[in-house]
């Protein structure tokens, strides 16, 4: 139960955050951080039980009729993520209090941040696939609010929308995949599904399920070719970037892959897609990172690269690879979180994030510099930091890859060289060397700004020196991902092996790249592959295309002219009926011979002539008169077929209509031809077709002989029931007495209306 409280209390805290901020004022960051700290302590307290192989689960009925429960469970993998989310969350809340001190909407910012934290916790702890999806979307929405928090610039707005669209699309794919998975696996509970891996892999839905879920994971974790939103999202305030775009949200995709590894992993399809996407992302990210000069964009691309590496490892799916992936998650969260927070502190103190304009800050900001250096060394993968252990494990895993060892090793080593150079650019370059002049005169950042990076970087060093503690945390997570328990031994020194040699080569190559980075950047800008063929371009093209399509079809269909709307309706009707009739039944053939007496034929001819005249006549009065003739003709047909009352009504209505039309026409401007000849021909075609169809239908309808029981009933019963011999009278005052009553009422109301209108008219005449 506490587990559910731990997740859901975050939303309550988010609601309370603006209010707490108003009370606590400048110390609000510290006060609010107590909440994630409490969460961290709670989760750390569970670590012992989880390490012993226990799984905590709680389930609350949510939508029982759909089999959706608000169920959470905590195993090794969830625990690792939960600890990162709440731990780094606490640091980020403190940091935000310093970074955005005095901001008018800081309270709101805390609210969004805590909402995100809670959503993220829900995501990694969810045991129900729909619950998982709900929290997944909540992270998208709250991250949208966070990215767009500072939004004076158009770029920030576009970036926020871009991130939302890409991850939103992925989220929808994920939903489809999860629904199919639920159908295939026969359960909505993750813990159930995890035991049915074989059945699901044999299911015909396996391929679509896999592709859809991968689409969700890849968009969220910024994998190639969906990676472009991540650098754009750097418009967000730095605490957001540090938290969302390095430590937590972008790892949601990794979490998903790790979580579903026992169910979906291990197949060829999984291996090829996941490994390829990971490798491509890793290489592209590392390469692009070195081309940037904005500190945050450098970090964004290097994050992308690191995520690619994790995806690649999960794609390999061997025991070693899984271990390396899980360790990398922790390694990366520690150093990249620290570097982002450092970047924010540097920006805050100096007023710029351009690495070319930064240098020699170590004297002004010694603590920040120390944290940055530690984090950068870990990122570079140098001993004795945790990053070194991680990289060694990655090399080992790639070495033992099932196929394509050389290719994969090459990719990983090359990317690592780039990342080493990038670590130098991002973590060391601003603090060492010549002192450069900056827009603001730098001072050491306040405690709230250096505490986070310092702690994270320190943890990186600690874990490197004493890997046992980290191993204790990592091994249950590996067990959960791998599907069976396995031991993880972390050590700095693995003995003399080819892996160590690769590390040495990496360091040498990386240093070389660092030295020659400006030449490298120049060469790259001449190639300009990214801007011409990058995914951003595709995204823009797609968006542009959709917009253009939308405008075009709106112009085409939404002309605003009534006549075109009518034309569409008639044409569609025609098309639909003609198609169904022709394809299914053939044209209806009139049964029996048609014998038309002469006077009927004459009448029909008259109606046709009048209709033609109504269309062709150039004066309104003439057209109206012609229409009147049509109406009278129809009334005459009623007379001929024995319905004098109907004919009477028709005569009256026709007369009234003609009079009314004439009265209205009097006020209209002169007749003008509005349509071109082509339009008239088209209209004629449509009209003729519609008329033809109606004719065919009338003929078909005539084939059906309705039993005329209504009239016979009236005739038989009028004397017996109503004691009246005149059937029409009986119908009017008795059988349909209520109808007549209604008609009289309507007439009375109309009379009152006409009377009042007339009075209105007279009064107007009185006052000229």
């Amino acid at each position, binding site marked *: 139960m506490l587990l559910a409280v731990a997740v859901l209390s975050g939303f309550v805290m988010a609601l309370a955050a603006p209010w707490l901020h108003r009370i606590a004022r400048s110390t609000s960051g510290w006060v609010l951080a107590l909440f994630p700290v409490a969460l961290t302590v709670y989760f750390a307290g569970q670590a012992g039980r989880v390490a012993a192989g226990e799984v905590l689960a709680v389930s609350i009925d949510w939508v029982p009729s759909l089999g959706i429960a608000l169920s959470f469970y905590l195993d090794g993998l969830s625990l690792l993520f939960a600890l990162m989310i709440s731990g780094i969350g606490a640091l980020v809340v403190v940091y935000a209090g310093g970074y955005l001190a005095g901001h008018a909407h800081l309270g709101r910012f805390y609210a969004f941040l805590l909402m995100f934290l809670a959503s993220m916790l829900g995501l990694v702890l969810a045991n129900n696939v729909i619950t998982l999806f709900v929290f997944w*979307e909540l992270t998208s929405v709250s991250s949208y609010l966070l990215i767009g928090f500072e939004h004076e610039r158009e770029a920030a707005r576009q970036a926020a929308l871009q991130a*939302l669209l890409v991850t939103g699309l992925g989220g929808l794919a994920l939903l489809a995949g999860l629904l199919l998975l639920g*159908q295939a696996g026969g359960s909505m509970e993750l813990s159930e599904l995890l035991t049915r891996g074989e059945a699901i892999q044999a299911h015909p839905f396996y391929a679509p399920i896999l592709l859809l879920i991968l689409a969700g994971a890849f968009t969220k974790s910024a994998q190639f070719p969906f990676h472009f939103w991540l650098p754009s999202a750097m418009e967000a305030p730095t605490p957001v970037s540090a938290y969302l775009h390095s430590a937590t949200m972008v790892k949601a995709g990794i979490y998903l892959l790790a979580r579903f590894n026992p169910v979906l992993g291990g197949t060829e399809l999984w291996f090829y897609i996941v490994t390829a996407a990971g490798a491509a992302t890793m290489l592209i990210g590392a390469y692009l990172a070195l081309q940037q000069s904005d500190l945050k964009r450098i970090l964004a691309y290097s994050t992308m690269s690191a995520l690619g590496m994790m995806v690649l490892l999960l794609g390999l799916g061997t025991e070693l690879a899984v271990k390396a992936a899980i360790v990398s998650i922790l390694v990366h969260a520690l150093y990249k979180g620290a570097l982002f927070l450092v970047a924010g502190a540097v920006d805050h103190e100096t007023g710029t994030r351009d690495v070319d304009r930064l240098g020699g800050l170590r004297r002004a900001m010694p603590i920040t510099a120390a944290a940055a250096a530690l984090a950068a060394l870990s990122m570079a993968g140098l001993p004795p930091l945790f990053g070194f252990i991680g990289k060694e494990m990655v090399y080992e895993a790639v070495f033992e890859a099932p196929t394509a060892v050389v290719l994969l090793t090459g990719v990983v080593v090359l990317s690592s060289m780039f990342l080493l150079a990038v670590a130098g650019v991002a973590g060391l370059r601003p603090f060492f060397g010549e002192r450069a002049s900056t827009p603001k005169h730098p001072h050491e950042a306040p405690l709230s700004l250096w505490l986070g990076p310092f702690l994270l970087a320190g943890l990186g060093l600690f874990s490197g020196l004493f890997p046992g503690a980290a191993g204790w945390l990592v091994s249950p997570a590996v067990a959960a991902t791998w599907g069976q328990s396995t031991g993880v031994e972390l050590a700095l020194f693995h003995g003399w092996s080819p892996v160590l040699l690769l590390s040495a080569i990496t360091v040498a190559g990386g240093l070389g790249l660092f030295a020659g980075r400006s030449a490298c950047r120049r060469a790259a800008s001449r190639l300009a592959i990214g801007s011409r063929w990058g995914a951003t371009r595709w995204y823009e093209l797609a968006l542009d295309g*959709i917009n253009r399509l939308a405008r075009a079809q709106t112009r085409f269909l939404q002309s605003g002219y009534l006549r075109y709307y009518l034309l569409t309706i008639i044409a569609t*009707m025609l098309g639909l009926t003609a198609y169904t009739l022709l394809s299914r039944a053939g044209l*209806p053939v009139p049964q029996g011979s048609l014998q038309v007496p002469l006077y009927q034929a004459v009448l029909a001819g008259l109606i046709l002539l009048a209709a033609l005249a109504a269309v062709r006549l150039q004066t309104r009065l003439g057209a109206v008169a012609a229409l009147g003739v049509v109406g009278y003709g129809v009334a005459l047909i009623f007379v001929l077929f024995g319905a004098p009352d109907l004919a009477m009504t028709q005569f009256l209505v026709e007369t009234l209509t003609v009079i009314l039309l004439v009265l209205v026409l009097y006020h209209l401007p002169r007749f003008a031809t509005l349509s071109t000849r082509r339009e008239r021909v088209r209209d004629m075609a449509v009209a003729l077709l519609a008329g033809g169809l109606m004719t065919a239908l009338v003929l078909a309808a005539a084939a059906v002989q309705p039993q005329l029981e209504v009239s016979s009933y009236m005739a038989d019963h009028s004397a017996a029931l109503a004691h009246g011999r005149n059937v029409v009278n009986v119908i009017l005052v008795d059988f349909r007495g209520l109808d007549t009553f209604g008609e009289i009422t309507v007439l009375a109301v109309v009379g009152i209306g006409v009377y009042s209108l007339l009075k209105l008219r007279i009064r107007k005449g009185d006052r000229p």
Partner: protein
Amino acid sequence: MLSEYFSAVDFLLLKPAILLTIFGIGVMLTDLLLDERQKYFNAVTALVGIGFAAVQMLRIQSQMREAGVSEVEAFRGAIVLDGLGIFFIWLFLISTAITILISFRYLEIENEHHGEYYAILLFATVGMIFLAIGMDLITLFVGLELMVLSIYILAGFLRGDRRSNEAAMKYLLLGAFSSGILLYGMSLLYGMSNSTNLRVIGSALSQRPLGDPLVIMAVVTIAAGLFFKIGAVPFHQWLPDVYEGAPHSVAAFMSVGPKVAAFALLLRLFLVPLGELREQWEPLLIGVAVATMTLGNLAAISQSNIKRMLGYSAISHVGYILLGLVAGNETGLKGIVIYLLVYVFMNLGIFTVVVAMRRRDLVGDEINDMAGLMHKSPVMAILSLIFLLSLAGIPPTAGFLGKYFIFLSLLETGHYTLAVIAVLYVAVAIYYYFRIVVVMFMQPPADQELPSMSLGIRCALGVTAAMTLFMGLYPEPFIQLATGPVLAILR
């Protein structure tokens, strides 16, 4: 037993409709006694009338429960009150009540605050009620015409506004045309079955040979008439034009009450008399549903007028709801019922925001008029976000629930391609709904004038937002609620 022909039950069932009519006439009479500044009293009268009707509904329901019946017939089967009818009547009462709440401040600003407005709203509601409980072609058609005639007038209620006049005129002409088509189909049904009772027609149709051209014609014409009323592609073209021109509050009303009523009619006709002919209309329905989603979602992208955009978004929602009918199993029908329920609240909610954007010197129906709402009125901005999230179908708002049912029903019935299309269009929807969010949250305000608020608008916003969130967060009671109507359909 009143007589050989009518019983007390007949009139008891009509009591909500009768009460609404009486109050409508009452509004028109008392309006004559009121000063210009007391016109809000008309709104109060109308609300009291809806209250009376609601109480009457509760009494009818409790009597039905006591008697242990789930369905009551009246007027010799011309009217049937079942679970579905009860559900729809409640939706109509709620949407009319909320429309009244958001109307009076708006009409004051427009200087068109007349009593007829509320009277006609009540009359439209009466028409809608007959659409929900009618089981007879004549009853249904008269109810339909009562409803749409009322709306023709309401759409042109701003007599001095050219756009409003144009909207009313277009709607009247096209609406009359489509009613004619519908009536043609109905006459075919009557000709084939000799009855206007839907159930009798249903059994008569099932005896006709397969692929009978007359049956096909009846299906096509009835479908075309209904598609026009609900605003499905390609009979949708009137909708954005009319929404744009009609008064804000009327557009709000049109987007929910009459639309839901048209769906009530569509469900009745497709499931009772045409229920056996599923294979005849399913391909048609699939085509229309996909076209509706495609066009509604795409066209919404390029709009700069928020009422037009919401018009297109309403069209796209129609596509989703039709998909529920395509699936046609229990989940799908539940999906339709829940979707309509959710739709009423979220759509009225966002339209309430639009109504509040109408200020003394600003029409307020351009998307850019919402710029910087987050600075001016954070509460309203956050509530709008909730409505827009829900319209897009993002959890944990109620909109997700409706879409979830539709997706699930499509998967259950094996319509995988349709399910994928439906899911993908949500992404498009996110795009255009969030364009509004961007404007509201991220653009600096163009002016400093606050949204026009009133007690009614506050109430309406509170109720709609609370329901939109609550149904998303705790959907179980509402799913249970939907079971009754669905059982009524499936029987």
